[in-house]
């Protein structure tokens, strides 16, 4: 057995120029903080701010790696990686463009028509157009191929019917990139699935908010009733949409968002512990920091592999599994430390209490969304040759 390659994670080297970029991003972010634009200091949730998104776009920090032809900035994957880290470290309100920048654009760049790229990508990079995912369904979560949303051929396009759920930011997005069935499932359930760009302003679409555990409105359920989608919105080949979806999922697996979602909790905790923290507290804090630093190295290593033109799907699954489990452990450790160090969270460390509560609620979904822990471990097991 040769497990070496996939589990190697060679150390990434970043060009020194990236440090300058980081400084630039940090300066921008501290300006934003001073002006109050980085709202919600008491939460780890990623929120929508159209204003903030437009400012990022103006700095060229959306669509960083795409070609200039499509409104991009032709930066490296490592530069994009650094900017993402900086944004997540302050829990910046990037929700509006997150999906389009991270996932949708990647699919369009690889599978879309020239016209589609020209139409959508510059608007995404400008922070004007947003996408909501359009993958999961009420009865198709981990088993995505069992989805039931279907599109039938009509004159000049398709008629789409069905329900999509867990769509973040659909209340601000103008489009979704739907995965739907256009041919009956045969022997191979992955055949006959198609991706369509759907304008959310089309007649026949209902958007229903879903309030999440944290009491926030982030998800939505989208219902399509005979929605007409013109032919020009077909992405790639009809019936061959499965590969696109899996590619899309790989883009979202190994990024720093898999281990930095609760960074604010770590930051508040570290501050609250104070310089005179007990030896035992420092040990626990050190354990957490060690995991974070390790995950960061792994994530950077994957970014470097992407930059070199490889698609390290297995490595990405490992990062997602370890990262999301780490974020749950962080919450556990934070709570234990607050209790054992006697930090009075109901008074002096009120913000820590709020961030802890928010992280507790959000952390449970990290090992579920974007491929559950069990699915990830299945992917890794396959990589080990067990399946």
């Amino acid at each position, binding site marked *: 057995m040769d497990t070496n390659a996939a589990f190697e994670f060679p150390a990434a080297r970043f060009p020194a120029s990236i440090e300058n970029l980081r400084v630039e991003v940090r300066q921008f972010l501290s300006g934003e903080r001073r002006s109050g634009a980085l709202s919600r200091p008491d939460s780890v949730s990623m929120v929508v701010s159209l204003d903030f998104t437009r400012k990022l776009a103006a700095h060229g920090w959306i669509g960083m790696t795409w070609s200039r032809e499509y409104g991009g900035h032709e930066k490296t994957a490592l530069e994009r990686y650094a900017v993402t880290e900086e944004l997540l470290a302050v829990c910046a309100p990037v929700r509006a463009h997150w999906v389009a920048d991270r996932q949708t654009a990647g699919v369009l760049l690889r599978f879309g028509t020239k016209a589609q790229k020209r139409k959508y990508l510059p608007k995404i990079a400008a922070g004007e157009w947003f996408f909501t995912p359009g993958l*999961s369904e009420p*009865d*198709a*979560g*981990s*088993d995505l191929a*069992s989805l039931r949303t279907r599109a039938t051929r009509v004159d000049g396009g398709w008629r789409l019917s069905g329900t999509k*759920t*867990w769509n973040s930011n659909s209340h601000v997005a103008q489009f979704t990139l739907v995965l739907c069935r256009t041919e009956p499932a045969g022997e191979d359930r992955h055949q006959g699935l198609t991706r369509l760009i759907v304008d959310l302003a089309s007649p026949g679409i209902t958007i229903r908010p*879903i*309030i*999440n*555990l944290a*009491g926030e409105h982030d*998800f939505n359920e989208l219902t399509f009733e005979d929605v007409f989608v013109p032919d020009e919105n077909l992405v790639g080949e009809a019936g061959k949409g499965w590969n696109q979806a899996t590619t899309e999922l790989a883009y979202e697996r190994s990024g720093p968002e898999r281990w930095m979602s609760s960074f604010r909790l770590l930051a508040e905790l570290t501050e609250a512990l104070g310089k005179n923290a007990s030896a035992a507290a420092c040990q626990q804090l050190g354990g957490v920091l060690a995991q974070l630093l390790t995950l960061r190295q792994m994530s950077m290593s994957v970014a470097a592999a992407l930059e070199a033109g490889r698609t390290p799907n297995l490595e990405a699954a490992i990062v997602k599994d370890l990262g999301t489990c780490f974020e*749950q452990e962080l919450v*556990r450790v934070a*709570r*234990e430390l607050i*209790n*054992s160090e006697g930090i*009075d969270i*109901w*008074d002096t460390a009120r913000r820590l209490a709020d961030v802890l*509560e928010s992280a*507790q*609620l959000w952390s*449970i*979904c990290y*090992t*579920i*969304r974007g491929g*559950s*822990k*069990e699915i990830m*471990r299945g992917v890794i097991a396959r990589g080990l040759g067990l399946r």
Partner: protein
Amino acid sequence: MNETQRILLETANRLLGDLCTRPVGDAAEQGAWPADLWRRLEETGFTNAARSTARGGESGDIGDMYLLVKAAGAHAAPVPLAETLLAEQMLAAAGLQAADGPATIGPVLRADRMTLARRGGRLSLSGVARRVPWARHARTLVLLAEDRGTTVTVRVEQVPVEAQGWNQAREPRDTVRFDGTEISADAIGNGFDFDELYRRGALCRTAAMAGALEKVLALTLRYAGERVQFGRPIGKFQAVQQQIAVLATHVAASNAAANAAIAAHAGGDGAFQIAAAKTRVGQAAGVAAGIAHQVHGAIGFTHEHELHRSTRRLWAWRDEFGSEVEWASWVGQTVAKIGGEVLWPFLTGRSAGAAADVPGAER
């Protein structure tokens, strides 16, 4: 459980199941008082379960009381049932008149202190108590206050809520402030000390968590049986089964620990057992909530699904009246005091917790 208790539990489950509906829960989280639910609990006598016959109640059996607290926990009842029962225990111990209507207790944080000042014949109460459960809805607040070096129980009819707050389950946890409020002499008695209140509070939360854990397991089993992925109910996947099995072990351990602590307390002591049980159930709460959510997947992350009513309560309650960290330290100190060689006789003795009972002579 004896036959009477079985009937009591059945009645409680029926009533709470009917009344603790989603709209009632949602409204309570928005700050509404579930008046109908409370009235029904009063009518069935549940809110009086801690009251002895001498004080106008029916039995005042301690076991019954905690059984109800556990049932209320299982149904996520958004009312101060445990607090009202605790308040009556305090009032009874202090020889003070029983309270009608919802009641609560304080202080609930170790750092908070109330003091009673005497000037002339006047008594005045001062101090701040934070995180007081349900204070804004309580008609009576039973407080412990320091009075010339001793702790006295004070019965307050007007609850001065300074700030409203919530716990993770959006149950009211308010700050009450007294600035020299005048107290009449017949509202004061000698009863609990703070440790006693804290310990009984811990037992209430332990019982409620055991109930909530059973609910979490039931919901998870139901969902695993219904939800189909890859052509099978997810409960048929070994990876899911193994996780639910672990969840079940923690639910069982919590039941065992809570039952034993309640029995020991009813038998007249239980300091050690309550500490050990709060520790054990607190450990279970985190593990169980994690597994339940993992099995439920995205649906469990919605407000629409009822799982969070129980899991958020588990997260909140494990921290109230002492987290498992705090109680574990207490347990550790206790056993360190008796020493390793006596640990076994201590754990198996008539009343673990009373060092005097430890047959150390048989070493």
